[in-house]
């Protein structure tokens, strides 16, 4: 269980960092999403990975899993969902405004402009 969780976090983080370092907005968004997934799973495991244990008090059960990280992850998921929606909208605006999805918005090269006017 620990191995699966740890490698999932590791792979998602690695892929996320690789994508965030690209210079195009679409991979950057994907990368940020992957990083958020990774950190959500990470947050989840910070309450110790325990299989088959309930998070709420019950009779005749002695081992519990910590409910707080689950609540934290729920909050974090909602917030990161909202954030992703915002960044998708902004990037879409940038893409439509400049016809490419470079992170650094380059000014139009001069020859393009003269072609457009002629």
């Amino acid at each position: 269980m620990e191995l699966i969780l740890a490698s999932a976090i590791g792979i998602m983080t690695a892929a996320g960092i690789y994508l965030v370092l690209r210079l195009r907005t679409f991979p950057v968004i994907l990368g940020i999403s992957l990083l958020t997934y990774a950190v959500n799973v990470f947050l989840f495991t910070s309450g110790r990975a325990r299989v088959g244990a309930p998070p709420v008090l019950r009779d005749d059960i002695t081992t519990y899993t910590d409910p707080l990280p689950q609540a934290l992850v729920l909050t974090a998921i909602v917030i990161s969902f909202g954030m992703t929606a915002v960044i998708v909208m902004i990037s879409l605006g940038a893409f439509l405004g400049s016809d490419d999805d470079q992170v650094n918005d380059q000014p139009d090269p001069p020859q393009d402009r003269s072609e457009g006017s002629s």
Partner: protein
Amino acid sequence: MSWLLAFPIIIPFATAVIAFLNRDKPTGRWWSVLGSLLLLLASGALMVRVLQEGVVAAQMGQWAAPFGITLVADLLSAVMVVITAITGLAVAVYALADIDTAKEKLGYHALFQVLIAGVVGAFLTGDLFNLYVWFEVMLISSFGLLILGGSREQIDGGIKYVALNLVSTILFLSGVGLLYGMTGTLNMADLSLAVEEVENQGLLTVIAVMFMVAFGVKAAVFPLFFWLPASYHTPAFSVSAVFAGLLTKVGVYALIRMFTLVFDHDIGFTHTILLWVAGFTMVTGVLGAAAQQDFRKILSFHIVSQIGYMILGLALYTPLAIVGAVFYLVHHIVVKANLFLVAGVAQRLTGSTDLRRIGGLYKSAPFLGFLFLIPAFSLAGFPPLSGFWAKYLLVKAALDIDAWFIAFVALAVGLLTIFSMTKIWGEAFWKPHPDGVEPKLNKIDRADLWPLLLPIAGLATLTVIIGLSPEPFVQFAERASDQLLNPQAYVAAVLGGAS
């Protein structure tokens, strides 16, 4: 008691809702001003209570301290809330003239109030995860404000801002996860007790550095500040004023809070990193500013440079240095927001913020020149303005512990700040306008003129008052610093006092 702490958060949220519902009507903007005024009153009441009774804490939903969400105000939080309210009011008045109806219809005032609510919430919360939530509230509304109007330049700056801030959020969350895994609590007061019992102090230092990077991105310190000059010169002037005044300061506040309350176990390591960071932040910021030719870009780089001074206060970690940091924080918010407001008026009069294409302001609008000089000289540290005392405290704190080199850096950076300010003065105010435009103040409608000039004059007056009678402010900062360095009262108020 709990209402006193909740009101500064509830008021801006309520105002945001009302302003959003009235966004199509001209009354919307006045709701924003009214809400800011109420926030100022509420924060004043909170301040009075904190001054009389010491640290005030309230448990939300009556869940006792380490389990529920705690709101807590010590002197630092209280003064930050007051200064946020003052800046908020100044910008809300300024926005009456600065924000056009198109932006109002898109919900400018609602976003602005949510931003203020997020900032106040971050100052008042006593819970680490709650701090994350307030950061996100602040960020989402600031994204909205940043790209409001949707020019290409704004969106370009906005993407960098969003991406880098999200990365910092991710680091912050991982730090929260690690800290919870080690201590089993996220209440800051409880954490300050719990970290002492952690066996693996080395891992604690790693977590401390993660928080340092996460808050460092928000505070725009070297080498994490690149999003700031890329985006702060693009939005409306009232937006960049409130960003410049408040947003980065939330990061600085979080650094000060965490590195005095929780991460004080290995000062020799963490605070040495902070000292280097402070030095490089000051120098790179001011050199970046020297290379710029745009009014707002120069000011943006100066934010970075000034953040270095506040971090310096935290890094030296003597009582006097923390006094200096607190004083600097308050002084800087007032001055920086004001400079951006002046830049807005200058742009309105001359038609641009590019220093090469404007000029003649001193000849035709000497009053504006006067209003610019007060915050500009204060920023550079001229006596008797507020910036002089702020720098004096920090340099003295550095010299007291024989940190000669960093004291020299701080003074040299002050000198370079004067260089940038005289550049703005020479280009925008003294030189004649290259196109022969006469930027007279009466070019602006009378109805627009007073909302533009009143906040600038008000903030400038505040700068002068702090400068001429620094005594009560320094005494206040001393008490705040005492509370920060001896957090027993803070911890007792949160954990002991059920309210």
